[in-house]
């Protein structure tokens, strides 16, 4: 058995937390980009395009994230791609995030009065200009609180990537726990680190919500 002092445990956990942060950011940015594409399909005038996007969203919201990660991890090698836990984790969380973000932003687009579209058209703007100049800025602005709220959910979801072997906070804590046999302390600290990352964002989302309500 290796001797770990309290500070050894804390230091190792904080070092591992960097990967949790990095993964969350990568998935949030990737999810935002893919989510925008899904959003375009979701709000298009073509019925089939809307149906396709709805199906995509329902698929990701109706299955466990853990299964999505497993399918990514075991499925991509079948397509001949060599895949490591990091790639599977980023791709899995990106698609997961894209479905949720597209749905959040879609609710923002739906909340705008039809007059906004009409006004844009009457100014001679074409569809993409309307979206870029009038619809999307307003839709993003009114859905800022749920978007930040989803970021919290995403950070918590990164814990699942420990199961497919990605070395983030939870996987490192499992290893430390196996060496120290102090699960109460180790998992308590892990919870504390996650709390320190998520709670400020939760409070921020709450303040955005309050500001929107007034």
């Amino acid at each position, binding site marked *: 058995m290796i001797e770990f002092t309290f500070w050894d445990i804390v230091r190792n956990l904080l070092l591992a937390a960097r990967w949790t942060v990095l993964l969350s950011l990568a998935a949030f940015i990737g999810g935002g980009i893919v989510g925008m594409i899904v959003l375009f399909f979701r709000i298009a005038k073509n019925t089939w395009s809307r149906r396709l996007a709805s199906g995509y969203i329902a698929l990701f919201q109706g299955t466990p994230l853990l299964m999505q990660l497993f399918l990514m991890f075991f499925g991509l090698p079948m397509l001949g791609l060599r895949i490591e836990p990091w790639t599977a984790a980023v791709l899995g969380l990106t698609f997961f995030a894209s479905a949720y973000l597209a749905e959040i932003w879609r609710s923002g687009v739906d909340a705008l009065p039809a007059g906004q579209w009409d006004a844009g058209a009457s100014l001679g703007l074409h569809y993409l200009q309307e979206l870029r100049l009038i619809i999307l800025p307003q839709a993003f602005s009114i859905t800022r609180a749920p978007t930040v709220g989803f970021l919290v959910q995403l950070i918590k979801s990164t814990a699942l990537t420990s199961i497919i072997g990605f070395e983030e906070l939870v996987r490192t804590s499992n290893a430390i726990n196996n060496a120290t046999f102090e699960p109460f302390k180790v998992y*308590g600290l892990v919870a504390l680190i996650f709390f320190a990352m998520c709670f400020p964002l939760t409070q921020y989302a709450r303040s955005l919500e309050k500001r929107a309500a007034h």
Partner: protein
Amino acid sequence: MAFAWLPGAAGDIARGAATTILLIAVTTLAGTFLSILGAAGRRNGPVLLKRAIAIYVEIVRNTPFLVQLFFIFFGLPSLGIRLDPMLAAMLAMTLNMAAYTIEIVGAGLDAVPVGQTEAALSLGLRPRQVFIKIVLPQALKVIFPALTSQIVIMMLESAVVSQIAVRELTYEADMLQARTFRSFETYLVVTIVYLVLSMALRRLLVSGGRRALGAGVS
């Protein structure tokens, strides 16, 4: 892709799905009950209780379910509380769900006009009767869609309890893929089972809610 293993595995998958259904059924009942107590306590209880409930809600909502599960299953034994995997999973799921539904039920309670309580009190009903017979049914009706979503989310999240060796659907999938070496196909089939379960659960809850709480539940 090859699915020759599937007929022989149907029994295992069905058994795993049954355990998942059992888990979510227990969690739904216990979690809803706990969140009604929590939401009522947060509004009418003593200051200390209110504060304790608020802290509990914040801690659970800002940490991953997987960590909560590990803390309960691996961490609590060092305090002398040893739970078997099934019980630990039920406890973790219930405590997790309640933290989300306390807020939901609370919003429902706030949505019932005060006049309802005043009218019931003036008819001579006792405060407890007023809460159970007048306020709660109306509150549940308002929040039923949100409650339904939370229950479905919890069912999907329950895949994680395979990590403490509860023999539910994901655990059976892990065992199957280790035996058949058909990882992708196994997880694909089980993902479809989860999809069907979540759609069926949503439909069941909506129709059950309509029957229990009357029309207007969507």
